[in-house]
């Protein structure tokens, strides 16, 4: 198909607004798949994705479409990860397209994620085709949604298509809009191969399968190619398109979207956003926008049972094969034994990895409280990146600590504005501005430290607004803050798993809270146990666990003896499973309890 008859587009939407259903309908209507062999939600292949109704990995698919006037088109649908944790991956997927379908739920209206995604699409210069979906719902409010599109997203009301993917309404109109409104790929400037690698997956039989959008030149089997970020060289084994199954082709040309396979060992070897070019006739410059991905959120992952370390190591290694954004390195903790310091793109990414370890690999794991990566400027003007509180240098050599900031969009019903403002304030956020979405809802634009929204910000928004609020964010650089390391000491000895970097103004309250929680979970010992929270050498909170006074079985006669012995054996066995900190035996459950409250 000629480049004029090719359309590359993606679908962007808030969770549950119907992206996957619409994708399936497009595949059916174009005859790419038939209804009888379709599984629900065809493009999402991981169980976890399906369960959470979110897409983590982008799966392109090529469709053929004959328009109303009888012209044939090649449509490449690139499914994007919806969540902002994967903003870079989303941006590379968007970069492979010329246009985007923006799906908005007819009953729910514009949500925070819609706004965040539209911003990304605008940055890529994509043509937006707005689609109001689920118009069959009894509570659909089309005028309100049209108004929101106009007011919040500056999209003229008449541009929005109305559809119900579920009922199959408006699908034809959407396809027509794709071919008529979204521009064809630009004609290439020359014949030099420039291909954008926008994702890759690991296949145990075939190695890495890279997804590629060709901007100029051709890519075909046996071609000698190289990746421009690191000059690594490969020979192409196979190229093809997704129909949605992989279908080998003689070659891919400018404007095409497909895959190539080239003896690449792991997904870490081929970076998303890289440019593939010809070895003999290389492009002089790479396609714009390539970045190394840096994890934003870190957490220690440990096996609950220390004997499972090797098992965990294998499982983490396997996950990494298919997810190059996930990084890890071994670490050990006095409290938790051997484990891994893991880096994630964001909170959702972290939850997904942890959940996959539990589910797919059947691991019992404990995760330490998530932390972000801090920039530490030393007095000698060195800039250190610190992702683990344990590695924070001594305060005396720190000139400044900077923390990552996010620009957040919080959408909430009018009546909750006060509570949400309060929440943002509690999280050390600053308000930028607010705008009314309609008569019922407002959108708050604010900046927040990433660290503050790691744990419960989203949950709190949901609970304050009884589920009606939503939140999304994008990264917005680093800013200096009064940050300190908070340590918890048990009988004078710091417990590494509990150390954290917190804002100075929060440290006292946090210290008190953690010390009190620790007091609850440390079992009584034969002597008094002192629990302290400290910043540097300064104690900011203390608690004590009083000494055990009485632990003795009253009756010990014939029938009691076995029971008594088993009781003692159990006590002894329990002691073995405890971690000894400053001579105090702390059950592992205590660590888990405290880490949970963080």
């Amino acid at each position, binding site marked *: 198909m000629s480049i004029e008859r090719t359309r590359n587009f993606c679908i962007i939407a808030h969770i549950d607004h119907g992206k996957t259903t619409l994708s399936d309908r497009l595949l059916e209507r174009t005859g790419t798949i038939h209804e009888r062999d379709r599984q629900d939600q065809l493009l999402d292949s991981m169980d976890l994705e399906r369960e959470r109704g979110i897409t983590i990995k982008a799966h392109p698919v090529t469709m053929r479409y004959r328009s109303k006037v009888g012209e044939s088109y090649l449509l490449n649908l690139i499914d994007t990860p919806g969540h902002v944790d994967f903003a870079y991956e989303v941006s590379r997927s968007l970069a492979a397209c010329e246009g985007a379908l923006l799906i908005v739920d007819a009953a729910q209206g514009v949500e925070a994620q819609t706004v965040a995604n539209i911003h990304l699409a605008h940055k890529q210069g994509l043509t937006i085709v707005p689609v109001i979906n689920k118009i069959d719902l009894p509570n659909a409010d089309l005028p309100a949604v049209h108004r929101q599109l106009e007011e919040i997203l500056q999209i003229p009301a008449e541009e929005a298509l109305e559809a119900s993917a579920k009922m199959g309404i408006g699908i034809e109109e959407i396809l027509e809009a794709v071919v008529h409104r979204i521009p064809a790929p630009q004609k290439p400037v020359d014949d030099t191969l420039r291909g954008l690698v926008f994702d890759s997956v690991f296949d145990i039989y075939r190695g890495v399968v890279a997804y590629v959008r060709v901007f100029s030149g051709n890519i075909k089997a046996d071609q000698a190619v190289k990746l421009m970020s690191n000059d690594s060289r490969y020979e192409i084994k196979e190229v093809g398109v997704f129909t949605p199954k992989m279908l080998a082709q003689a070659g891919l040309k400018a404007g095409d979207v497909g895959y190539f396979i080239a003896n690449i060992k792991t997904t870490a070897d081929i970076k998303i956003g890289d440019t593939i070019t010809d070895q003999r006739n290389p492009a002089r410059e790479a396609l714009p926008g390539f970045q190394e991905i840096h994890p934003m959120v870190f957490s220690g992952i440990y096996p609950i049972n220390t004997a499972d370390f090797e098992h965990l190591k294998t499982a983490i290694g396997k996950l990494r094969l298919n997810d190059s954004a996930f990084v890890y390195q071994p670490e050990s903790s006095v409290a938790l034994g051997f484990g891994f310091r893991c880096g994630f793109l964001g909170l959702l990414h972290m939850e997904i990895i942890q959940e996959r370890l539990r589910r797919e690999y059947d691991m019992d794991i404990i995760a330490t409280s998530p932390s972000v990566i801090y920039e530490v400027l030393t007095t000698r003007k060195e800039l250190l990146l610190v992702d683990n509180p344990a590695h924070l240098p001594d305060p005396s050599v720190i000139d400044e600590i900077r923390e990552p900031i996010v620009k957040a969009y919080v959408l909430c019903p009018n009546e909750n504005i006060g509570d949400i403002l309060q929440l943002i304030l509690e999280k050390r956020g600053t308000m930028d501005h607010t705008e009314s979405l309609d008569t019922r809802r407002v959108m708050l634009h604010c900046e927040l430290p990433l660290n503050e929204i790691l744990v419960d910000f989203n949950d709190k928004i949901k609970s304050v607004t009884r589920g009606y609020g939503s939140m999304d964010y994008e990264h917005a650089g680093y800013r200096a803050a009064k940050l300190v390391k908070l340590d918890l000491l048990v009988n004078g000895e710091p417990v590494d798993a509990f150390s954290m970097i917190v804002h100075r103004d929060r440290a006292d309250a946090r210290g008190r809270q953690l010390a009190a929680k620790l007091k609850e979970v440390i079992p009584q010992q034969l002597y008094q146990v002192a629990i302290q929270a400290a910043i540097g050498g300064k104690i900011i909170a203390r608690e004590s666990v009083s000494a*055990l006074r*009485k632990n003795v079985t009253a*009756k*010990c*006669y*014939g029938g009691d*003896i*076995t029971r008594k012995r088993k009781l003692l054996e159990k006590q002894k066995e329990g002691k073995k499973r405890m971690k000894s900190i400053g001579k105090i035996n702390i059950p592992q459950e205590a660590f888990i309890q405290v880490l949970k409250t963080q």
Partner: protein
Amino acid sequence: MKSELMSNGAIHNCAERTSAHPIRHVYVHIPFCARICPYCAFYKERADPAQTERFCLALLAELESSGLRLNLQPETIFFGGGTPTALSTSPLRELIQGFGDLLDLTKLVEWTVEANPGSVSPAKAQMLRSLGVNRISLGVQSWDDQLLAVLGREHSAAQAELSVQILREAGFTNLNIDLMFGLPGQTAAQWEATLARTIALQPEHVSAYCLTYEEDTEFFLRRARGELRADEQTDAQFFELAMQALGSAGYRHYEISNYARAGYASHHNRGYWAGEDYLGIGPSAFSTIGLQRSQNVPDYRVYSDRVQAGESLTSSEEALTPQIKRSESIALSLRTSEGIPSHWLDSWNDEREEFLSLGLIRQDNARVRLTERGKLLADSVAAAFV
């Protein structure tokens, strides 16, 4: 039944093997109670008079068959329960007489029967004494009528005092009074008064048990529901009050919950703590013979049926090992005033040092013993040594 047992080769061999070690302690479980106390986890039921005769015969039949396979030379017999004296005088007499007939009692030094105040008539007391019973353990629990009501006891303090009088008049010169502390709502003053009144009655032996919330009891459920609360600090204080009061009244604290005047420590119970073999007769009774511990079926009707049918009475068995016996010896001996020989603990020096420095144990004459403070933490110490 006799021939069946004798034809069983295993049992025969067993008898040969064990005959060299006479069994010196016999426990008999009488599971009847006039009333079910809400804290008690022992197997007991309300007595069904129509069943008691058959049950007493079953006990004697079990004893007889045990005598055929084991070398029984009892130095102590202990009738516990339940409440043995819940049996009326005549079946109790036949039972006691039956024991006298079936057993060689030439070595017997102590024959204890547990009794509840209110279930000991002068006639019953005299019968017991005349048939060789020489020690009564009286379940007084408290001298406070209000607390007795909390415990669901049938008797009053006045009745308990009368029982002591009856037993003394019947000629019992070895009397134990069972007490409980850490009761719901019990004050230190109430406990001190109970101790003082006990001491004033001059029993030879006092057992003072901290209330334990045993599973499968009403008290356990009530505590789980938050109606009752165990308070470690108060329990510890009451334990200390008992040690002080009884100690200064001349009672020797010879085991965690037991105090006796010189020469009146319970031989039977010391047998348990010394790891000696014992034979248990009756439903739910435990026996430990050599490295075998077993429990009889804990239902007196099933028990009686099985005895009658000549079937095995065992409901559960546990094979002990020398290591287990050793662990038990340490745990049990540690609870006694003798303590344990120091050389038993050679490989646990770290813990020993810690316990010494915390003042939980002391070491003299090559023995390790619990201090007063250590007695309150006996399980913590024992857990390190088993």
